[in-house]
């Protein structure tokens, strides 16, 4: 141990006692107190905080649900109904948990849209993006496992369809599926292990979120103009400015989720899941949760079992390499006149895929799914590298405070116009 280590001094002796033994006080002060946020960050930058709060809410409501839930095929459905009818505030716990999952995905999708549109995935935040995609994957796995637990018809058949995806793998597929299920079809062994994994994965997510936040704090947050912080003039401290802003966002979010929990708790639920699981009868339309529907649409758009499975997983895996497919040095789409429209097209396309993913795979819907599939992969493999190469980005602002000088308070300060700023030179010479 370094005897000459410089220990932070606080006024409070208790804090000093802790700090000397575990420098956690200075860590929190640095990362959540003095942490500089670009002052031009808009409300899109509140969704990371919202996602964290939602994760905690999901873990807490889940723990309390688990106290009354029975993971056995004969009792699971009834135990959920008991939670709804007999357990004190059980209905509230369950509606918070089921709608919280949907809102978690809404928030994370907006968070991803933010990262894509404003180029947050680019140098030097690539690892941060990779950790984020990893969190997204873990979330999808966790929500799928959780959807099985109420043991309704959609639970059972959703689990059947998704686990059968693994049987498409040549040679080892059938064996792998049986190993995952612990049986030859979805049964009690499956329900038991799905419950165990559904309980543990959120804590894994929590750990990766910790890395995700630590990684973004190394180089600081991106911002709508996609340029780096140059001086103290460009940033504000996280506390109190961003904390207060995030709190406002949280209030708005609280109103939105409460409206659904209290006035439309089953809006996003499938009616068939209120029928107990029956291994002998498949519901007429098996639909995934809406937040997984875009990927389900890709699966069904391919008329080949293995091909569909590969493209569906490929649609997620491709996200990992986005930082290397995009050749442009300009981060924010606000300064990318061509790519901006393809990017918005990507969001619309993703939404359309989700829409047809909830409908039967036939006729026009199937056609839309196929066109959407082409655009999805075309966006990553062709549009993103190609546009980055031919596009002439518009002029970046000199600095973050310069954006304010021009747009918001033209009379206060501001940099010289027409001179390339250090920010711009750095961005284009990476």
């Amino acid at each position, binding site marked *: 141990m370094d005897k000459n280590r410089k220990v932070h001094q606080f006024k409070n002796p208790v804090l000093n006692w802790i700090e000397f033994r575990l420098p956690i006080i200075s860590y929190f002060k640095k990362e959540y107190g003095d942490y500089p946020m670009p002052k031009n960050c808009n409300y899109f930058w509140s969704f990371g905080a919202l996602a964290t709060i939602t994760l905690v809410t999901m873990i807490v409501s889940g723990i309390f649900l688990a106290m009354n839930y029975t993971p056995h095929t004969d009792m699971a459905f009834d135990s959920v109904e008991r939670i709804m009818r007999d357990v004190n505030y059980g209905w509230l716990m369950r509606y918070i948990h089921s709608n919280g999952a949907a809102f978690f995905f809404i928030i994370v999708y907006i968070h991803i849209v933010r990262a894509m549109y404003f180029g947050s995935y680019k140098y030097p935040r690539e690892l941060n993006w990779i950790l984020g995609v990893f969190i997204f994957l873990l979330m999808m796995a966790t929500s799928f496992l959780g959807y099985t637990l109420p043991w309704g018809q959609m639970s059972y058949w959703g689990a059947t369809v998704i686990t059968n995806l693994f049987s498409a793998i040549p040679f080892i597929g059938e064996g792998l599926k049986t190993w995952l299920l612990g*049986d030859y079809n979805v049964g009690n*062994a499956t329900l038991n292990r799905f419950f165990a994994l559904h309980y543990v994965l959120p804590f894994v997510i929590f750990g990766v979120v910790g890395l995700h936040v630590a990684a973004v704090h190394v180089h600081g947050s991106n911002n709508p103009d996609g340029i780096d912080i140059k001086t103290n003039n460009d940033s504000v401290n996280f506390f109190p400015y961003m904390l207060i802003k995030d709190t406002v966002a949280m209030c708005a979010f609280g109103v939105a989720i409460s409206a659904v929990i209290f006035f439309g708790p089953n809006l996003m639920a499938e009616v068939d899941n209120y029928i107990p699981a029956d*291994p*002998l009868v*498949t519901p007429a339309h098996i639909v995934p949760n809406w937040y997984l529907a875009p990927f389900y649409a890709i699966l069904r758009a391919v*008329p080949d*079992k*293995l091909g569909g499975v590969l493209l569906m997983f490929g649609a997620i895996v491709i996200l990992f390499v986005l930082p290397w497919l995009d050749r442009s040095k300009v981060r924010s789409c606000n300064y990318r006149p061509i790519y901006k429209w393809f990017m918005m097209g990507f969001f619309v396309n993703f939404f359309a895929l989700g829409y047809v993913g909830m409908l039967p795979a*036939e006729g026009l819907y199937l056609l839309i799914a196929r066109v959407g599939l082409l655009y999805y992969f075309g966006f990553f493999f062709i549009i993103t590298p190609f546009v980055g190469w031919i596009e002439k980005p518009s002029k970046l602002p000199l600095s973050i405070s310069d954006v304010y000088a021009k747009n918001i308070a033209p009379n206060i300060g501001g940099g010289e116009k027409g001179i390339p700023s250090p920010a711009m030179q750095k961005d284009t010479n990476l």
Partner: protein
Amino acid sequence: MAKKPKNKRRDFLQLSTVTLGAVGTAAFIWPFLKSMSPAEDTLAAGSTEVDISAIEEGQSITIKWRGKPVFIKKRTKEEIDAAKMVQASDLRDPQDDADRVQKEEWLVLVGVCTHLGCVPLGQKVSDMKGEYDGWYCPCHGSHYDTSGRIRKGPAPKNLDVPPYTFLNDNTIKIG
């Protein structure tokens, strides 16, 4: 980089220690992985005897065997002829009707779509039976013929035929 001779012994010890550690770790993980495979009682899930005397021609019943639905259908003359007329070589999963039945009026199938595991429709008179008048899977649109063979849609294989024996004219033992 060339090592000095006196380091060779140390290198060997390091390498063998790490190797032994890796093998030990793998051996330790194996029971945990294996515990997720089907348990002995699951494997031992037995056989089922079914009385088929009450099944009329053209009728089909569904029974449960090892947690899966099994279709037992007494086929009509037309259905048998339709199944026999098909050239096996034209099929995605080539198989003659004769290889899929023991007695040609009795068709026994595992009622699980080979695509993603849904139960195909076609057991009830009112059900959709698909374009080949056998079974139709509503999940992703696979069509099966009167021999349970895949004819159209995403499923890669014919419906499985479970192991079964006729104990007598009125009883089938499945499994």
